[in-house]
């Protein structure tokens, strides 16, 4: 009997081997290679010049679409109720995506849809590295991934990936991702600062098989929960992801039972080709062919004493540089080239190529492709060129990624402006958006919370920053974040349960929106007092010395960030004696108003250092969480007088700037209500325009002076380091720079001449150099 059983088992295994996972004798890699080949030779995804199912039975095709998309959205809504983390449950920082067997995205749910590509990259990594023979891919398996060197955005986005088998063959995959509250990195909070390499970024899992027969493995459960500071949130997040994936797997089984496997598989490919065509037709319908060039920057101020890094070579100020040339061709195809971008750095803001390319669809769905059909079709309709070695395509396996968004959000502001330029020129003014706020500050930290437990906090108030101004109206105030179109600032009561931090104020942030004819949406600010915590730490993360967005067509960038924290505040005594307290807004930071309501001997930090590492906080210490505004549109001297008065009366604009920037003549009545004198304002604005010309120079005159400054090397080291890394990666950018400024033939700027550590400038080692590792390259390098 024993012999029979084992023989039949063997025979079955042999049969499976013959048919393979796909039942057609092909390995997954052969299968994927063939799809790539057909796509490349024909220009149509998988060679689909015709969409058979869609053309022959459009109603059935749409039915399949609605069932699957509806099911994905429903699964996300249902699964998120399992989570306890406010990041998932309140903010909706999760997403579920359906893939075909080759790992190309078929459809996705709502939420953080950057993961359309990131989980696909993980599946492709498993395919390219023969996961099917070891560790094996079987029905009921689960794989977990958060590895940033193979496509994840940052380690706190944890993905659970489940293969879908029907009638014994692999027909696709479903992935679920949640943004967890802590990853066990060097410091608490999901996106820590301080570490400057992968090795401090937190628990890193590479497509590991973490479950069989629909159950998580015990070693995984034990190891993963003790690898992070917040195991309760961690395990409920995992249950959320597993539940969603299993709901979607059941959904696919039901759809196949109703519609047949052939129709389902046809759909799962045709919908991607449809997505590719959709992008091209949208480009033709909304933009103008031609070349667009924009640039974006953001600061990494690590030389400051409040940034503690484990590595001495990282204690330098650097700047992210991202130029982009977008070429929209007359056939509706387009190419995005980032030649000239600066090198990756010793910090945690680097991005993998897939985080970059997948992420831009979060933005595009808000203007260019506002449809539910988000899948890899848009990727196949776009040519990306991300030079190897830049911050968006690092060539070293040591890079840190914990807050890749610092660079991504900043870099993408350039693409908003480029597309908006074309919408404006074409007359689609309703679509114009000057850009996106730098989605910060990030209040993070941890210690022992109000319940006596080890805890980490990561406030997601940043999901409600100001949006960019449009060409027909102001941006939205404290409304959105580019990385989650459905973000929500969350209820005070919920945050106070999740964090030992009492609210002393939550107000719109005065003067934070970029000025313009239409201003950027304002951000907001919340003043938090540490309460009932022990051994508590917090840190700041955001832009301070620089802006990452620019205004458009005469509008200004939004305000930059700044930092306010106070220790030894004496608030305990002030509360006991009923003394005044710092409450509400920090309306004009120059006036330092909070300081009038705390101990005169308090230790206050009020400056532009918006990147810090973990610092100690006692109960009754203060922390200002200032969420940024969006950039403006059009000349601010053309802002409607009523809009200026409204902003003054809503404390969104300081009177001084109504006068100086908007040229308004304003007055305040007995009741304190502001109004604008329209007639005097018109005359005053004419004077402002004259004054502009009086202080201006012809651009070519100014260029001579700037050229002199370049020749004598007058710039801070951070600026020079930025140029030097861009020049080293791109002789083309160096050539264009020298041509523009008419510099001598032998002019150059090298990192080694800057008198700062240059680790990484010469010696680098890519992940692909590791034995037996096949990286997946999805862009031109």
């Amino acid at each position, binding site marked *: 009997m024993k012999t029979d059983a084992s023989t039949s088992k063997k025979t079955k295994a042999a049969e499976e081997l013959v048919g393979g996972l796909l039942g057609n004798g092909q390995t997954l890699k052969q299968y994927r290679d063939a799809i790539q080949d057909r796509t490349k030779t024909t220009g149509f995804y998988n060679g689909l010049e015709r969409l058979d199912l869609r053309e022959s039975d459009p109603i059935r095709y749409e039915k399949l679409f609605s069932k699957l998309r509806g099911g994905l959205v429903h699964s996300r809504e249902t699964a998120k109720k399992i989570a306890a983390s406010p990041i998932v449950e309140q903010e909706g920082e999760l997403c579920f995506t359906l893939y075909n067997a080759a790992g190309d995205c078929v459809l996705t749910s709502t939420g953080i849809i950057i993961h359309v590509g990131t989980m696909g990259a993980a599946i492709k990594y498993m395919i390219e590295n023969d996961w099917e023979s070891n560790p094996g891919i079987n029905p009921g398996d689960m794989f977990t991934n958060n590895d940033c060197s193979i496509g994840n955005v940052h380690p706190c986005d944890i993905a659970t990936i489940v293969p879908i088998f029907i009638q014994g063959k692999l027909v696709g995959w479903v992935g679920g991702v949640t943004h967890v509250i802590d990853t066990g990195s060097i410091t608490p909070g999901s996106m820590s600062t301080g570490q400057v390499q992968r090795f401090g970024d937190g628990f890193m899992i590479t497509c590991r098989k973490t479950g069989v027969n629909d159950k998580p493995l015990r070693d995984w459960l034990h190891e993963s929960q003790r690898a992070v500071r917040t195991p309760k949130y961690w395990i409920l997040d995992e249950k959320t992801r597993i539940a969603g994936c299993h709901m979607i797997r059941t959904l696919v089984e039901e759809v196949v039972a109703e519609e047949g496997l052939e129709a389902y598989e046809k759909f799962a490919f045709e919908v991607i080709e449809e997505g590719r065509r959709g992008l091209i037709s949208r480009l*033709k319908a909304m933009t*103008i*062919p*031609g*070349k*667009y*060039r924009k*640039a974006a*920057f953001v600061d990494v101020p690590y030389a400051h004493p409040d940034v503690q890094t484990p590595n001495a070579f990282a204690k330098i100020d650097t*700047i992210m540089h991202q130029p982009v040339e977008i070429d929209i061709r*007359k056939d509706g195809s387009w190419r995005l080239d980032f030649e000239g971008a600066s090198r990756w750095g010793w910090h945690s803001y680097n991005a993998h190529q897939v985080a970059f390319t997948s992420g831009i669809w979060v933005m595009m769905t808000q203007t260019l492709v506002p449809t539910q059909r988000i899948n890899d079709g848009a990727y196949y309709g776009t040519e990306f060129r991300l030079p190897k070695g830049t911050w968006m395509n690092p060539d070293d396996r040591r890079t840190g990624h914990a807050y890749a968004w610092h660079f991504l959000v900043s870099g993408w502001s350039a693409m908003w402006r*480029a597309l908006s*330029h074309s919408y*404006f*020129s074409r*007359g*689609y003014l*309703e679509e114009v958006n000057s850009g996106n706020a730098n989605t910060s500050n990030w209040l993070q930290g941890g210690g022992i919370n109000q319940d006596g437990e080890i805890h980490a906090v990561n406030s997601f108030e940043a999901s409600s920053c100001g949006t960019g101004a449009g*060409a*027909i*109206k102001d941006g939205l105030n404290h409304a959105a974040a580019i990385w989650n179109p459905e973000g929500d600032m969350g209820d005070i009561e919920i945050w106070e349960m999740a964090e030992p931090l009492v609210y002393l104020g939550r107000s719109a942030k005065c*003067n934070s929106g970029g000025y313009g004819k*239409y201003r950027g949406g304002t951000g907001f600010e919340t003043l938090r007092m540490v309460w009932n915590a022990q051994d508590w730490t917090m840190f700041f993360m955001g832009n301070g*010395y*620089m*802006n990452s967005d*620019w*205004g458009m*067509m*005469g*509008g*200004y*960038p939004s*305000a*930059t960030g*700044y930092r306010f924290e106070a220790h030894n505040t004496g608030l305990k005594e002030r509360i006991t004696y009923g003394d005044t307290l710092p409450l509400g807004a920090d309306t*004009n*930071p*120059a006036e330092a108003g909070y300081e009038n309501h705390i101990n005169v001997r308090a230790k206050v930090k009020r400056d*532009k250092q918006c990147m810090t590492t973990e610092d100690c906080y006692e109960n009754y210490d203060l922390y200002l969480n200032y969420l940024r505004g969006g950039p403006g549109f*059009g*000349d*601010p*001297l053309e802002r409607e007088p009523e809009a200026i008065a409204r902003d003054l009366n809503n404390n969104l604009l*300081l009177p001084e*700037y109504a006068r100086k920037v908007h040229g308004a003549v304003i007055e305040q009545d007995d009741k304190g209500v502001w109004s604008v004198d329209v007639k005097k304002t018109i005359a005053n604005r004419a004077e402002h*325009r004259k004054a*502009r*010309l009086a202080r*201006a*120079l*012809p*651009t070519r005159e*100014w260029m001579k002076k*700037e050229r002199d*400054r370049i020749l004598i090397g007058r*710039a801070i080291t951070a*600026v020079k380091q930025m*140029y030097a890394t861009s020049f080293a990666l791109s002789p083309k950018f160096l050539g264009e720079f020298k041509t*523009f400024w008419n510099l001598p033939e032998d002019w150059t700027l090298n990192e080694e001449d800057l008198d700062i550590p240059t680790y990484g400038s010469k010696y680098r080692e890519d992940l692909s150099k590791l034995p037996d590792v096949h990286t997946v390259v999805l862009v031109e390098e």
Partner: protein
Amino acid sequence: MSTYTKQQVKNLTEGKLDWDTTMRMLSMPKDNERFSIYLDVLQAKVPWKDKIVLPLGPHLYIAQSAKTKQWVTKCDCGHEFGDYRENWKLNAAIYVRDNPETMRDVYPTLMAPDTEWQVYREYYCPECGVMLDVEAPTPWYPVIHDFEPDIEAFYSEWVNLPVPERAG
């Protein structure tokens, strides 16, 4: 597909379009004839006779000179910045906020960039003083030539309009 009247497009350009229509514009497929209506609306607003070829901003246009048929970049006040293929910013007036004092005129202390890291370059029309663009790069950054449209392909292949005559 929705279509819109000249009055509605005019209201749009003035920021005065009712929200229902704006929402319809946002949610419905785009009306390909918008471009020609938009040109008509804008042409009626500019004080000069040259034909608008492509709007570049609230005050800036590529226009076909009525006299020479050359295409030039032009402010609505009439100031010309030269050939449309050139970067108009090189022929503008510039004011650079590159120190804390001048930065303080636009943002309160602590809310403006540190000018060692980033400067604001304001480009004005040399004739009427309108602010046409603000660049916010690091020091030393080349003036960005930010848009080179393929107008011929756009007119003839995308919006099916005759390409305006061009000399030079």
